[in-house]
């Protein structure tokens, strides 16, 4: 673990793996140090911003004992998905399997929101299985709201229409982000997600 400088109000904790990030983030959010404003996990890092001093924050960050089995601690939600995405066949080719096997693999295991970013409520979900899906050669200028997608080791759901380079495998009607709702974001780091096959549209 390395602690890197990030201005007058933040420190960046760098870890070796995404699992370590989840374990560290879980422990840190369970008992956040005094004066902490934001704790932002990402693929290999956790950024912590504070309204207090950096020395005290640095000491507190070094004292964190990462949680074990962080994948299994968040609450679980089920998301019905219609698997009719435009890139489903391309993904099957990459994985060297049939389209229905892609769906089986995607629905067959639990996913965990590792971190959020890109746009409000966009979660980067990981599973214990190995996914390694290249992004599309050229990103789409418009990906529809609710599109369920894969890229790299991650799965995600587009919270609103936006440009995007992930491979689209399906769609869900569940609102992933709704600014009128409390909480607005369905995905938060640590939340567990199971995708359920809602049948062909």
């Amino acid at each position, binding site marked *: 673990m390395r602690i890197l400088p990030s201005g007058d109000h933040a420190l960046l904790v760098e870890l070796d793996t995404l699992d370590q990030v989840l374990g560290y983030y879980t422990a840190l959010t369970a008992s956040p140090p005094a004066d902490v404003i934001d704790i932002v996990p990402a693929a290999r*890092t956790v950024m912590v911003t504070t309204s207090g001093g950096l020395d005290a924050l640095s000491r507190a960050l070094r004292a964190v004992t990462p949680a074990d089995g962080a994948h299994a601690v968040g609450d679980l939600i089920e998301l019905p998905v219609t698997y009719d995405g435009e890139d489903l066949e391309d993904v099957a080719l990459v994985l060297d399997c049939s389209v229905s096997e892609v769906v089986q693999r995607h629905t067959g295991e639990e996913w965990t929101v590792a971190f959020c970013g*890109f746009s409000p409520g966009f*979660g980067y979900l990981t599973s214990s299985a190995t996914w390694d899906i290249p992004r599309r050669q050229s990103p789409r200028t418009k990906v529809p709201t609710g599109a369920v997608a894969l890229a790299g080791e991650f799965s995600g759901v587009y919270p609103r229409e936006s440009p995007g380079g992930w491979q689209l495998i399906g769609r869900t009607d569940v609102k992933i982000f709704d600014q009128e709702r409390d909480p607005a974001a369905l995905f938060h780091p640590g939340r567990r997600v199971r995708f359920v096959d809602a049948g062909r549209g």
Partner: protein
Amino acid sequence: MTSLTILETGPLATIQDAGRVGQASLGIPTSGACDRASYALANRLVGNRDGAAAIEVTFGGLVLHADADLTIAITGAPCPGVPLNAPAVIRSGQVLRLGPPRTGLRTYVAARGGIDVPPVLGSRSTDLLSGLGPAPLTAGQTLPVGCSYDVMPGVDLAPVADPPAGEVVVRVTPGPRRDWFTDAAWTTFTTQSYAVSSNSNRVGVRLDGKPLERARTGELASEGMTLGAIQIPPSGLPVIFLADHPVTGGYPVIAYLTDPEVNPCAQLRPGQPLRFI
């Protein structure tokens, strides 16, 4: 209800407050006023509570009509034609016209009671990156003014300097990815005079100059970034993150502005020279 009506907006006028604090882990940017000192001063001058919403005007041009007697204060980039850095009463029916600022870029108009549009996720700020909050102001729009405030301060005029017109020099500290750049690049970074690009906006100040050389190749996994981060994209030209910056970024952050330098950077105009030390 008290209100004011926007007759003209100028290049860009938005509603801003202290932003959506503490929601970064959900991918929700903070947003809020770019020049927080000027925004806070405008609120203080009219006795508003912390966090009341004001209007952020970009390069003047705002024309507004008082639909009732209003107490206002205008701070930040000094626009001719209006009272500056002081509380002022404008009478019902009176029109306030902000000329192009003598120096600086962003001007704040606070009304006693605050702009009272419905908050989104705890803030009335327009976030141009994520699309949260009210849309940018348009001509003809009527804005409600709230009725909760504190006592007026006993101040006639706040003694603040105008944003500088010439070269601006700001202090930086090494960022988390300083080691992605050669020492020669760091020297270039801290000695050359950059020019503010016209592509700058509320997300970031983009700079033109000599590109910086990286000490290593490869891609950075996206990581958390905060206000004042100076990111170096593949072009080698810095981008300083302002209020609407994304929660995470995928390019290495070579340095951060020291805290007091964020507000002056929010006042930089296209073409203005900037140096980091």
